[in-house]
């Protein structure tokens, strides 16, 4: 198993899960560009801190064209808006529609980054720890389903290499290659059936889901977890209050009106920024600490 270096991952699963769910849901359901930008910036910052720069830039190279495509697509289907730039095949292309497309692109982008962060922080062990007792069957199925594709990919490589090593595959023509792939694929399907059966039997033998069974875990609920949960809940309440009462409402159509800067809007933005910055803040703090200690030695 991959060793996790992230300090944020050592927090208690309950707090982490609550945190990620609230962050992802709030980002998904808001259209306010300020909030979405905050979400995107801190999501990217966190990913940048926990992965290396090369991987980060590689991801960016895929995602930026994606945003551009969404930005260009929206005005083709939505013709509302006061500022008409030009007419395309008799339909107006408006500035508002382009900006709205960009906003949606940023939202998708931000959600992708926070899901990446979720994947990096919450692994199977944490997921089963949280839901293993209350919904044992579903959580096992979920955890199996989530790792299914990567597992098949890995096994495919192993089988392919083994066959190549044995020298039993003739790769001269396209037909041969297809035949080889099909053989490996059929092996893969059989193997995956067997593995899932094995998993099921093995879990049953271990008494998974039985009453009174406890799980081994290393998670301890400490002060920092309590603080994380309290901050998350308070900020959630403020942001959700802002979203439900319409304080942060932002309308693109038919005209973008500048929102008045009021105390309530600023409160919501600041609390949202605090909520979003927690993981990046913890990671950066830890990095600085580490560097400082190393220098001291």
């Amino acid at each position: 198993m991959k060793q996790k270096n992230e300090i944020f991952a050592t927090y208690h699963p309950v707090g982490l899960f609550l945190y990620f769910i609230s962050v992802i849901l709030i980002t998904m359901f808001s259209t306010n560009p300020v909030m979405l930008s905050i979400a995107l910036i801190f999501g990217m910052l966190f990913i940048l801190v926990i992965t290396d720069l090369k991987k980060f830039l590689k991801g960016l190279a895929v995602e930026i064209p994606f945003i551009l495509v969404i930005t260009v697509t929206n005005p083709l289907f939505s013709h509302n808006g006061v500022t008409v730039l030009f007419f395309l095949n008799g339909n107006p292309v408006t500035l508002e529609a382009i900006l709205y497309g960009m906003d949606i692109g940023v939202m998708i982008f931000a959600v992708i980054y926070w899901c990446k962060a979720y994947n990096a922080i919450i692994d199977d062990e944490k997921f089963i720890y949280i839901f293993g007792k209350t919904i044992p069957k579903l959580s096992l199925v979920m955890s199996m389903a989530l790792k299914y594709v990567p597992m098949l990919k890995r096994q495919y490589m192993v089988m392919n290499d083994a066959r190549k090593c044995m020298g039993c595959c003739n790769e001269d023509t396209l037909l041969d290659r297809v035949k080889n792939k099909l053989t490996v694929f059929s092996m893969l399907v059989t193997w995956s059936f067997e593995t899932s059966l094995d998993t099921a039997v093995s879990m049953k033998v271990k008494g998974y889901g039985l009453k009174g069974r406890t799980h081994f875990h290393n998670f301890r609920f400490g002060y920092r977890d309590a603080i994380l949960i309290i901050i998350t809940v308070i900020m959630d309440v403020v942001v959700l209050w802002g979203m439900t009462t319409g304080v942060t409402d932002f309308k693109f159509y038919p005209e973008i009106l500048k929102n008045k800067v009021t105390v309530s809007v600023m409160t919501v933005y600041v609390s949202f920024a605090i909520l979003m910055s927690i993981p990046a803040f913890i990671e950066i703090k830890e990095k600085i600490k580490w560097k400082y200690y190393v220098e001291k030695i």
Partner: protein
Amino acid sequence: MKKKILTAAVVLAILAVVISNVHIQSVDEYYLEHAEDIKEDSETVYLTIRCDTVFDNMDKLDDNVKKYIPDDGIILEKTEYVLRNGDTVFDILQRAARINKVQMEYEGADNNVYGTVYIEGINYLYEFSCGELSGWMYMVNGEFLRYGCSNYILKDGDEIVWLYTCNLGEDVKEKEQFNETEE
């Protein structure tokens, strides 16, 4: 090498198709069209666009749209338009919107299951702009028809009224009947 040439050719072909189908006009160019002159022997129809039901439901109305609602609720006054052969209700609306520089958005006939054009919004007043049950409806000669607006072919002298409903048509139907008995 062969592969590269092939992909280049495909990309070029797609680009050519896209470019040949794209027709870009500036705003002034688009609105340059003038109304066709009405001669003595030309067939004509009348068109009105109203949204007065909105005034009964001001609390539900989208704040951003309020600015664009005319004070009397009449977006286009009753005007005579030349009827070309085979013109539908939608054709007349589109032409009138263009001549009078009124914003209008529709969903094309090939994009929906009903096989007819659906009018999403006129003059920035859209479906759902005034509550969940709001949208545009039309009436020809005082009757709400069971046709899509691009399926009804008009006759000489027809009178079209586009109405904005805030309650799935109930409110406009009541109002129109009331007007008739009053007259």
